[in-house]
């Protein structure tokens, strides 16, 4: 039974997955168990993405199905689901840039891979990253940018983190649009990630748990 949901959700069979969830809830199954199965399925989705069996549309679709499952399960939850988180990651699209598709995908992948993600949104001023690092004690910061103006915004953000005396506390990864290894050097970041799974791998490498 449990394996069914894991397999079927990982295979992106929306109708079947929702049916199983409804049946299990009707049969009085533990809602937390259902969520745990869903989480395991999402791990498989992430692995398939990593292996280039799945692509961004598959991630988006799996995210939608997961949302529907959570909506079904939530009313039945008697206590809040306790999720053990691997660590905290701050993410945002840097100042001047309002693009968010790539950032949202990285956020989603970090989330389903067990990280607590603080998504600051788009056009985020350097100071806001600094404040969030102080507030949350996160060890990883992800800077996203699509436009070439983001080169300098990223550089300024990392300089602001440095000026605040926090540079040694965090690892910084960059990604999106025109970013590459040259821009990693230019901005002073610790790493460049070419896709969402690269972001997850870096976070795991830096925080542990992978």
């Amino acid at each position, binding site marked *: 039974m449990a394996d069914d949901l894991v397999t079927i959700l990982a295979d*992106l069979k*929306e109708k079947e997955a929702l049916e199983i969830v409804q049946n299990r809830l009707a049969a009085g199954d533990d809602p937390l168990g259902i969520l745990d199965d869903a989480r395991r399925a999402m791990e498989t989705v992430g692995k398939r993405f990593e292996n280039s069996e*799945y*692509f*961004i*549309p*598959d991630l*988006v*679709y799996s995210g*939608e199905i997961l949302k529907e499952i959570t909506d079904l399960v939530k009313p039945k939850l008697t206590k809040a689901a306790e999720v053990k988180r691997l660590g905290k990651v701050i993410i945002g699209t840097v100042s*001047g*840039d*309002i*693009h968010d*598709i790539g950032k949202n995908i990285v956020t989603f992948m970090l989330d389903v891979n067990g990280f607590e993600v603080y998504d600051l949104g788009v*056009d985020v001023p350097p100071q806001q990253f600094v404040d969030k690092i102080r507030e949350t004690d996160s060890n990883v910061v992800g800077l996203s940018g699509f*436009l*070439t*103006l983001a*080169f*300098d915004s990223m550089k300024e953000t990392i300089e602001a983190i440095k000026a605040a005396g926090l540079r040694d506390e965090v690892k910084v990864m960059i990604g999106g649009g*025109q*970013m*590459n290894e*040259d*821009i990693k050097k*230019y901005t002073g970041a610790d790493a460049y990630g070419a*896709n969402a799974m690269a972001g997850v791998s870096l976070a795991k490498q830096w925080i542990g748990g992978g």
Partner: protein
Amino acid sequence: MDKTEEKLEEWCSAQGIQFKDDEAEDAYRKRTRRLADAIQLKVPDRVPIAPLVTFFAANYVGLSPEEAMYDHDKAYAAYKQTALDFQWDTAFSHMIAFSARWLEAFDYKQLKWPGHGVPSNRTYQFVEGEYMKADEYDAFLEDPSDFLIRTYLPRISGTLAPLQMLPPIRMVLPYYLGLMFMFGVAGAMGTASALESLVKAIAEFAKFSASTAAFGQEMAGLGFPSIFGGMTQAPFDTIGDSLRGTQGIMLDMYRQPDKLQQALDLILRDAIQMGVISASISPSPTVFIPLHKGPMGFMSIEQFKTFYWPTLHKLMLALIDEGLVPMPFIEADYTDRLEIISDIPRGKAIYWFERSDIFKAKEVLGDRVCIKGNVPSALLCTGSPEEVKAYCKKLIDVVGKGGGLIVDGDIGIADEAKPENVRAMTDFVKEYGVYR
């Protein structure tokens, strides 16, 4: 002579251009010939360099993006000075700066521009949204024009919002005074303000297009053709960018693939017309097609073959049938789908690559299409002139071998490119790119 050759010869003949002097005329002919040869995979006298200029031109002369979007004369002067200083094979107009007043007239929602959502020193940016909901395919498919007028326009324009109050547009027909009723109702519903905004937008657009047309004429007269003719989009991008949004269209591929296919087929017809009509008012026979949602990562090869490529392929073939030269701007990375897009008649298109492996592209596509690109923005913005030259050397040695290369930046000349790097790229291509 086939149709493409005819059109290109017409372009090279420079008919109707008032040249400043014989030198300018000679330069114009040489430049169009160079481009026409590269497009047709003949060996030109040297590798052409024909960049899209973005807001680099504004930055280069110290004009803020805001000024460039509000003051057409200043924008004109900036793009002219840039073209004259760098002496590329083509001039690129201030068309890219748009008209902020035109956007204002519509209270346009699909862009944020300086003073309207982004600061004055930033360029405009596209705002994606779900401007057509998942359950609105039927309404769109049944009567696209009605859907666009009464549902889509009110969502992408604040001033056109009252159009949503109109009765279906076809109601002008079933009764003999239908027109009177239609706009009688329209007046009562407050649509007069929407129509007034249209009048204002038309006036603003007229000023803008007069300015860009004058630019084209003056620069041609000085010896600089434009490589940008018409423009259109891949049907999948039209639905993804303008109607459903990235997330929406990705879900549609799973949840309602048939409806998506029907909409793609419907939009194909309009995409062809858009390319043909826009190219007909330009001397250059190229049709610019920016590609957004089909690269590696964004969809699997299967999805690409099913949803993205078929209508793009038909669009390009239809344009080629008209003698036009499709110029898809292949954004992001297509390295794993180069074989698929190589299915195109020889010497009739320009493929402009951004982040694909352009050297692999030469192997796979070199005998089919002219390749444009792709000096990385990262280099132009943060590298040194020496690094830029080294990249251009490899580009010319490998991709330029035997012709079929037009040099440009990966996304054109990026806004923040360093002038000394752009200079290095330009001078190097002109020196080293000569075919001997």
